[in-house]
């Protein structure tokens, strides 16, 4: 949730109040006086800055403009990461804490790399080596970390909504790095950036404004996937048509209000897709028996060589990782040039730099 100047129930002082309302301030055109009448059009400017934001909890609260702003910032950081020294002093003196209550290496490393490339200091908290195993509550844990003086807290938690609760307890900016089956907004942002980048290469270097007209299938365990939720919101905010593909047992009970269509038949739509986005089958979340077997899933929904050949020539293959070869994707397909998986990882650092800078740097504190 993006909450400019949010008032919190525990009385944590909001830091951004005035600036946030200033940034959205009214804009007008004044009469041009004196000698400047001839060049009237150039003689005024309009402040079009997007409002300062404090937290990133869900894609739903970044509207289309917010997503495009992150894309634009990411372009600048993409250039930074191609330099011999891929580091800028933008967040010197700020501290970013990563609080991961659920196992993850790639997301945590990606955030930490992003913070370090912005010259921020990084504090790492992992549940396995902390007092959480001694029974400390989430609230006490995050309040303790906040009390050490941090500017942003990147949090992953197995409960949906945990990051939202944390915003009530800490003064730092909170970034959701995945909460339960709710959302994983930075994954969706990096996926949008990756698709946009792949399209750029295809359009003679011209960066497309958005994902308008693209047909994107998200395949797999939609029901338990926070990545799917964030991506549905982000892809459709940028104008893409999203189709969800899953067996009935892995589809949410209701798709009401989602800007998507759904099908159980992957083979029927393969030929019309611009992007096929594969989700990991999360065996750890499959508490009940939802699939007869992983082999059967692979046979019906896995991206096999035969299915890859049925895709459009320039279709893109994406996966948020970690990939389980032989389930969602055949080993030989995972290594095809159409696969953007390693590009997604690279872009993860870039987009997370943009998110951190957007929250900590681009708005006045």
């Amino acid at each position, binding site marked *: 949730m993006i909450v400019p100047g949010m008032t919190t129930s525990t009385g944590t002082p909001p830091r951004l109040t005035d*600036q946030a309302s*200033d*940034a959205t*301030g*009214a*804009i*007008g*055109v*004044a*009469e*041009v*006086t*004196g*000698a*400047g009448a001839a*060049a009237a059009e*150039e*003689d*005024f*400017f*309009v*402040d079009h*800055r997007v409002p*300062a934001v404090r937290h990133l909890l869900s894609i739903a609260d970044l509207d289309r403009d917010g997503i495009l702003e992150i894309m634009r*910032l990411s*372009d*600048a950081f*993409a*250039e*930074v990461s191609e*330099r*011999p*020294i891929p*580091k*800028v*002093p*933008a*967040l010197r003196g*700020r501290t970013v804490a990563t609080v991961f209550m659920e196992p993850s290496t790639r997301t945590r490393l990606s955030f930490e790399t992003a913070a370090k490339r*912005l010259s921020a200091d990084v504090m790492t908290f992992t549940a396995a080596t902390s007092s959480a195993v001694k029974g400390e509550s989430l609230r006490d844990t995050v309040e303790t970390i906040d009390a050490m003086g941090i500017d942003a807290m990147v949090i992953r938690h197995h409960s949906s909504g945990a990051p939202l609760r944390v915003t009530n307890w800490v003064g730092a900016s909170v970034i959701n790095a995945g909460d339960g089956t709710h959302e994983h907004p930075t994954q969706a942002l990096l996926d949008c950036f990756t698709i946009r980048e792949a399209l750029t290469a295809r359009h003679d270097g011209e960066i497309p404004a958005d994902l308008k007209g693209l047909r994107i299938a998200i395949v797999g365990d939609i029901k338990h996937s926070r990545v799917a939720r964030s991506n549905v919101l982000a892809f459709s905010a940028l104008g893409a048509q999203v189709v969800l593909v899953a067996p009935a047992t892995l589809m949410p009970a209701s798709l009401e209000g989602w800007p998507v269509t759904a099908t159980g038949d992957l083979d029927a739509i393969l030929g019309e897709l611009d992007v096929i986005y594969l989700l990991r089958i999360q065996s750890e979340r499959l508490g009940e028996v939802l699939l007869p077997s992983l082999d059967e899933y692979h046979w019906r929904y896995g991206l096999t060589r035969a299915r890859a050949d049925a895709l459009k020539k320039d279709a893109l293959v994406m996966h948020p990782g970690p990939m389980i070869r032989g389930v969602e994707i055949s080993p030989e397909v995972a290594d095809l040039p159409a696969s953007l998986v390693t590009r997604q990882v690279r872009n993860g650092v870039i987009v997370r730099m943009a998110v951190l*800078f957007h929250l*900590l*740097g*681009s*708005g*006045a*504190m």
Partner: protein
Amino acid sequence: MADRERGLTRPSGRVFVARSHVMDGDEVRRALVRIAHEIVERNRGLQDVVVIGLQTGGVWLAERLVAILREIEGTAVPFGTIDVAFYRDDIGLRPVLPEEVTDLPFDITGRTVVLVDDVLFTGRTVRAALEAFAARGRAGVVQLAVMVDRGHRELPIRPDFVGKNLPTRRDELVDVTEKGVTIGDLLTTDKERGVR
């Protein structure tokens, strides 16, 4: 006006209103021709010279300068642009966003870098640019060319090539375009007054 200066006045919701035009388009063009000659003279030619425009106000000036240098000496000097948003010292004090992506397709190590901006004011943008250069190599010499030096420096930075020295009040704004140089004020609009 320099985008950086627009930045300094953000967030505002206010508008720039021109008060007086102090240079016309021809005068800006002639000043650039003079600066180009000075650059050639100071560096005894264009050996190792590269021209870098500061995003965004300095870029068009730098492009013109490169074109004029080519006419004078018949040499195409390397041209790049740089955005220094991530090197500013006021991140967190005011909104800072990059205007454009940096495009510096050559190594500056050992080169004579001519940094071009439209308006020199506090010197903080130039300081940020020097830090940005340091992260990319060790320039042999860095020289600064600006169309307008309006004073009010906050750091020990001085320009090497100046189009015009222009005494200003601190709260004024200076706008440089190919049509000329304008001094003006930021005025609060009626709408904004109603809000406050």
